[in-house]
């Protein structure tokens, strides 16, 4: 059985970083990622089950790791060697029990909520975050019975989605996939959950102007979350800055009100918010800006078009950035992160639900499975990673490994 294994190897790490200068994902073949024969991971204990991945996505955070651009912040909450792949749909080979305690028979399709919080680590009592259901904020990511790892796909003990050897998942991580979902629908549940978490945590109020900067998987999923979950109860105007024409088409199809290229977004926000411009910044601006890119340029642009005391939500994973924060200070901008998932209440009166459950609704309503643009077999991982790194330019959104048929070809 094969798996793509990411090892701690400084020379390969350096080579990958150099190669990434020529484009994200260009260094997959010379970097720390290698296709190896592996054994299935051991079950770490009770309430753990084997999942055989069928489709596993390549995420922006995966690319940042492969490119050597990931922040050193994560060093202590990752363990090597690990098999990447945290956007996973697979089959429970021996059955299992899901997050709600429901038994799932063998052969059940399931997705995993990859955060490795207190429950998978058998830590009792749970930390306050996990106790409240917000396990994305767990503080024990390097403790307990598992090797350090913030998520499946970054932990040496669990395996990951980029493998035919399978991975192990704790019952608290498992969600059965509805029969109506294709594997493509299922594999985008995880990034959609991130988007749902960001959208519902942004404190959007009725009449707000909301800008989404970036229209890769996360940006488009954020648009879908805003359209499907936020806007029905909290009317708002959604503007999207999308670099590529296919992204603009998708954003419009998902229901964004105004879709423009990124360089036109500040002007569109200015028009929508009735702002003036002073020294290149809007005097007013959007109430909320979702930065789904995570670069210094995108953060700078977000701060230039959010209103004073408005909110910039970092949805895309940033690294070490050199950014002038004077506008943040001067305009009292709130800069908040949006990581992973937990429990959500779309309205104060609505009962809290797991983010993954809400995300499934969004995926179904917005048909987000269509974001999966290309799939590759594991042995063509160099092409797959390069394709994912250039997804926008090459007319793609989500690129995934297809583990259903090892002789599969990109679609």
């Amino acid at each position, binding site marked *: 059985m094969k798996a793509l294994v990411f090892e701690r190897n400084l020379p390969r790490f350096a080579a990958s970083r150099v190669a990434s200068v020529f484009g994200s994902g260009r260094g997959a073949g010379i970097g720390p990622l290698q296709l190896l024969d592996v054994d299935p991971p051991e079950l770490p204990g009770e309430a753990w089950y084997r999942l055989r991945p069928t489709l596993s996505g390549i995420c922006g955070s995966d690319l940042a790791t492969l490119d050597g651009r990931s922040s050193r912040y994560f060093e202590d909450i990752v363990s090597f060697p690990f098999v990447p792949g945290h956007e996973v749909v697979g089959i429970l080979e021996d059955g299992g029990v899901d997050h709600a305690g429901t038994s799932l028979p063998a052969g059940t399709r399931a997705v995993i909520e990859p955060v490795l919080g207190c429950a998978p680590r058998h830590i009792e009592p749970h930390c306050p975050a996990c106790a409240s259901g917000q396990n994305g904020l767990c503080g024990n990511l390097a403790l307990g019975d598992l090797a350090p790892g913030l998520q499946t796909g970054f932990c040496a003990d669990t395996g990951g989605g980029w493998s035919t050897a399978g991975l192990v998942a704790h019952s608290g991580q498992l969600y059965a996939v509805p029969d109506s979902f294709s594997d493509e629908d299922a594999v985008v549940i995880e990034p959609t959950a991130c988007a749902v978490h960001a959208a519902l945590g942004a404190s959007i109020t009725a009449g707000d102007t909301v800008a989404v900067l970036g229209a890769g998987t996360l940006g488009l999923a954020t648009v879908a979350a805003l359209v499907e979950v936020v806007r029905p109860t909290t009317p708002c105007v959604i503007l999207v800055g999308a670099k590529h024409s296919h992204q603009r088409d998708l954003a419009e199809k998902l229901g964004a009100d*105004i879709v*423009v290229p990124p360089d*036109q977004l500040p*002007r*569109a926000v*200015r*028009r929508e918010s*009735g*702002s*003036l*411009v002073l020294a290149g910044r809007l005097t007013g601006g959007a109430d909320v800006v979702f930065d789904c890119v995570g670069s210094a340029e995108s953060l700078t642009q977000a701060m230039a078009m959010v209103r004073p005391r408005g909110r910039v939500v970092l949805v895309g994973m940033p690294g070490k950035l050199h950014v002038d924060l004077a506008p943040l200070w001067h305009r009292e901008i709130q800069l908040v992160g949006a990581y992973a998932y937990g429990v959500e209440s779309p309205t104060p009166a609505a009962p809290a639900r797991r983010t993954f459950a809400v995300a499934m609704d969004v995926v179904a309503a917005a048909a987000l499975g269509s974001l999966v643009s290309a799939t590759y077999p594991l042995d063509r991982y160099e092409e797959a990673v390069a394709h994912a790194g250039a997804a926008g330019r090459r007319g793609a959104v989500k690129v995934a490994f297809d583990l259903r048929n090892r002789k599969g070809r990109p679609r």
Partner: protein
Amino acid sequence: MSPRPGFVLDVDRSTPPTLFWHGERFRLERLPEGSRVIYAPEPLDPLTDPSTAIRHALLNPLGDREPLPALLFPGMRLTIAFDDISLPLPPMERPDNRQLVIEQVLDLAAEAGVDDVELIVALALHRRMTEAELRHALGDRIYDAFAPNGLLTQHDAEDPSALVHLGLTDQGEDVEINKRAAESDLLVYVNINLVAMDGGHKSVATGLASYKSLRHHHNPQTMQHSRSFMDQHRSELHSSNWRMGKLIADSGVTIFQIETNLNTNTFPSQFGFLQKREWEWSAKDRLGYLGVSKALDRTPPKLARQIFHSIKAPHRMTAVQAGEVEAVHAVTTENVWKQQGVVVEGQTDILTMGLPYISPYNVNSILNPILVACLGLGYFFNLYRGKPLVREGGVVIMSHPTAWEFNPVHHPSYIDFFEQVLSETTDPIEVAKGYEESFATDPWYIHLYRTGHAYHGVHPFYMWYWCAHALQHVGAVIIVGGDPAAVHRLGFRAASTLTDALEMAKDVVGPSPTLTHLHAPPILMADVQ
């Protein structure tokens, strides 16, 4: 030898290639045999002594108006309003007509002991003029006498304290104009009539009006019912302005209108070939064309733009008339037709035109795609009396680079209009319904219009409405040599060559179409029989 009238050439095998303007470039195109090329009349002889002619006009007014000295008295408020940077095109060599006229008006005012005199640029919703542009139009003496003392102002259509609402016309049109002008004892308006559309009641009712007033005639419906703007009697744009003009007069505003005509001596000697018909090009003209073309081919576009915008036209005053608005304008219009009119027999299936670098709204600026459309479909298409040159359902082929490029200082709302509005719809009616008000009331555009050198937020809408008659009339618009993305955003078709464009046009008008080329500038007006 008297200047030759306009001419319609029938292209045959011996006809040399025809010159097409192409922005800051030229193209020589060989037109199909049987095509027609319409050439402007040669420039009329200018007045030998414009100063004397002006003095004569001021002392011998037309219509029901006393000579200017009789209207001037000590203690009165005198306001002199004048046309802005949009006229003439290109800007004329010094001295400008406005300077020549206003100097004499001021002399008479001084003789009469008038000391409350203000000058106002009648710019409506156009951009404010720069000091250099004002000095060029008025001369340094006038500028230095008035501007430092705040007595030379630019009409501000967004300053409520500087506007007065005079009432509604019998059609319910608001008439709101510059307060100082309306409340003066005498309003002298100094006009340069480049085309038949200019002047008349439009000078005050448009040039000194607010958006509230302008929206009654600057809208798609009015434009679609102006056939053409150059024919006052068939122009709803003019009918509305005339109703407003009558209301202004009935409100007690006394206007002393001074209109000047120019000849079509449009380009300086180094561009002499532009004034001539190709088969009459001398060796010097051919060398001039080759030299200019080759030099431009090697010149970066920005530099080429600077070079062209530095051109000052040698056109000169051919007539000046003063007095009551309508009486003056009737003579002025007649003079315009004398200079520019060309009788053309029948319409054509395909109308071709080479668009130059300049329009009324991009002096010292960029002819952005919206202005390209307006120049071709708003201005050139409407240079007719009787019937449009191109038949209904015919094709207009324009030659221009049509770069996706805007001057953010002059045309900030154009950028948003192009990016946001035209990406949704190019239908003038839908454009007006869906977007006009929000652009017209956008505080940022208003700020830039009032304090910078920006056209008003609503101005790109007007440019698009200007195209409404043509858009309704023609079957297709093709731009040769334009940026395809920009051309498609305008809703037009892009062609690399004129040959390709003609093939594309045949899909619309059928095989063996008739073709007419409008050889302008110099400006001409087709009297289509």
